[in-house]
């Protein structure tokens, strides 16, 4: 259409030849949104229900429908779970949250001690195959928390551990680091988890690689620790959303303020740790968990362990007496 009109305007006035428009353009109403959707609220589920007369009855019916659909969803999820042999540990937690969430706010009380009992179960994505982890670590910045997490993994699973040094740091890795993790006779073929600890020059902190064709490396000490914690207990942060958030905050504090922060931020972070600790022995719960491990590691690495505030000092002492921290402590001396 455009072509024909312009040729008429620009061309000679005496018509040498006429061109029929080669395309007939209809005016189409162009939408001014990217997607058109039917209104979510105008679904027929309850509006056209004529049997219920009162608004309350209407509401009740809607409530029942929602519950029914949730149940359906739950049963199909559990079917899928059976099909892919997902660990049972996660199911009750989800169920509880779904059902309780509809009626009352989630309980603030701690449930983590209970979920510790599920340790010993297989990580949820292990199904017969070996989980082969590569952890790249800079020998000049030893991520103590990861050493602790690796040890905890080998308590729980049969783990084949080996330490390598990459050619980018060849010749500069001390012997004690070179032989940090060794498997005590566990063969690669017989293990559930394989941990390859590689001393290497890494730009953005420790790096975890599981399957490079399907994922990007996980970077940063705390993020790697989170991954390992999930291997230890797939539902470590699913039981209690408030608590999980608190833990997350502590982990972020360790990574962003203590590990990566400047002197001021570090001091402030240690101060807030101090006030958080208060009279408690551990940061979170009755026994040390990932939050303690990561914060302890960060405090030690950033040189904040000397002359700390009273509560932090007490906490550091109880850490140094706990069995989790034994090997990592020996790295410091």
């Amino acid at each position: 259409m455009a072509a024909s009109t312009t040729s008429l305007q620009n061309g000679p006035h005496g018509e040498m030849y006429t061109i029929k428009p080669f395309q007939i353009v209809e005016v189409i109403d162009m939408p001014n949104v990217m997607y058109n959707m039917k209104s979510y609220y105008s679904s027929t589920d309850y509006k056209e229900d004529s049997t219920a007369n009162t608004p309350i009855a209407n509401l009740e019916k809607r409530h029942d429908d929602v519950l029914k659909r949730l149940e359906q969803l739950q049963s199909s999820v559990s079917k899928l779970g059976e099909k892919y042999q997902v660990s049972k540990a996660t199911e009750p937690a989800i169920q509880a949250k779904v059902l309780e969430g509809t009626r009352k706010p989630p309980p603030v009380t701690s449930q983590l001690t209970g979920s510790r009992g599920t340790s010993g179960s297989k990580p949820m994505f292990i199904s017969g195959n070996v989980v082969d982890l590569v952890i790249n670590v800079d020998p000049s910045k030893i991520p103590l928390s990861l050493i602790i997490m690796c040890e905890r993994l080998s308590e729980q699973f049969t783990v084949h551990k080996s330490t390598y040094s990459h050619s980018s740091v060849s010749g500069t890795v001390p012997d004690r680091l070179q032989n940090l993790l060794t498997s005590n006779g566990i063969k690669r073929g017989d293990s559930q988890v394989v941990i390859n600890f590689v001393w290497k020059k890494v730009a953005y902190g420790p790096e975890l690689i599981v399957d490079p064709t399907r994922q990007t490396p996980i970077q940063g000490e705390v993020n790697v620790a989170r991954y390992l914690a999930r291997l230890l207990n797939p539902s470590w942060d699913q039981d209690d959303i408030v608590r999980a958030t608190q833990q997350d905050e502590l982990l972020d504090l360790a990574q962003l303020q203590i590990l990566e922060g400047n002197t001021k931020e570090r001091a402030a972070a240690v101060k807030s740790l101090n006030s958080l600790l208060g009279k408690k022995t551990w940061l979170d719960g009755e026994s040390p968990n990932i939050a303690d491990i990561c914060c302890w590691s960060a405090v030690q690495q950033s040189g904040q362990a000397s002359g700390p505030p009273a509560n932090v000092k007490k906490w550091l002492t109880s850490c140094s007496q706990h069995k989790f921290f034994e090997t990592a402590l020996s790295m410091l001396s």
Partner: protein
Amino acid sequence: MSGEEAIGPDGVPLSKKALKKQQKEAEKAAKKALHKKPNEGEKEEQEQEDLSKGHYGVLPLNQSQERIQRRLYKVSELVPGIAGQKVWVRGRLHTCRSKGKQCFFVIRQQKWTIQVMAAQSEVVSKQMIKFISGITAESIIDVEGVVQTVSQKIQSCTQQDVELHAHQVWVVSAAEPRLPLLIEDASRPEGEGELATVNQDTRLDNRVLDLRTLTSQSIFRLEAGVCRLFRDYLTSKGFVEIHTPKIISAASEGGANVFEVTYFKSKAYMAQSPQLYKQMAVCAEFDKVFTVGSVFRAEDSNTHRHLTEFIGLDLEMAFNYHYHEVLEVIGDMFVNIFKGLQEQYAEEISLVNKQFPAEPFKFLEPSLILNYKDGVEMLKQAGIEMGDEEDLSTPNEKLLGRLVKAKYDTDFFILDKFPLAVRPFYTMPDPQNPKWSNSYDMFMRGEEILSGAQRVHDPEFLIKRAQVHKIDLDKIKGYIDSFRYGAPPHAGGGIGLERVTMLYLGLDNIRKTSLFPRDPKRLTP
């Protein structure tokens, strides 16, 4: 020529016009003479006014007439520390450009180069500069000069902080004026701009020139390093170097791929590998042996990684309880070689990379050992369809190399426990599962460089295995018999030197790392 009385050749005075014409012609002739036979003109001039006479020229053929007591400095020794000293240097004329009163040329000595300047002065005459600019490239010359520091780094030379101010220049051995290839062209990275590069065949046809390039010099120095590090490491571990025969009576690994030669009135074969002989040396109580020598493969494959003759680095070792003792020694040996190259040959590596860019070679210490099963699993996860007991095809090998690199960031790894079905008859089967075997391959940048195994050292079992593979027992009688008088459990493997060098440097063709390569289409030079 045009005198006061302008007289023509016939004695008749010339007209003005003719006079002018004659004058012009004379000028032309003079110019021509100067152009055509500069030597004659020079000679005349030299006799009269050449200040540099006796300070340049072509030396007579060296028949060891006289032993001159004179220190010849190496180009590498010319550093700012000896600035101001007068030194003699011998090297090849790499490039030369002259601009009227001065002349710059570069002397090359192996991988080192230095810039020399000759400027007209009391000691350097115009004639001398002319002589220098006439010397053909690649000629060997002796230069005496004063070492001088320079204000601006000379980027094109290895000696960047000094240059030489020439006082004397002598040609020791002149090169032909027309070279089949220019060193500069042969040193140029491929695919860069529109400047000429030299193709592989021209290079190989004129290998003597091609080997003079910095890149070739570096490659073969590094190759020598691989060989030396191999020897040093194994010697330090108590290995004995042995030499095995290369003319043998029967093919060592099956009948195919061997060169047949006439051996007086009968036939003989060129050794495909020293396998048999190193095993016999182990049985002969040498315990741990290695050998460096040529091996021959009559494979008519024209690929980037096959040669018909190459240098094999082979080792064989008796072990105490488990063949992994050997596997670890070989793995450690490779780490040692890689580390040694990284530390001692950093310059050579960077020089080669300038022409043939490649990622630096990465490795882990200790070497990564994966099971064949795990390797196949990785391939399957990447979408490759293959059976558990299937051999790795070349593309799969490469892909596996890439997968391993992505995950473990290492260019070198060991694949252990190959399926028995894809290995030679003398491979020891796995004790638990006869589907697998005690054999291993090692890979560099996704290409196989070593293949080895625990060998069957029991003669009866060996016969059984040979029968499974339908091998004529008569032909391998000697091999089997060598195990009849007590043989220790042993394992080993062999590497191709050229392949290791090629892959370490990330080069694309094995012909680049073989001094005078032999392939199905090339027997010369």
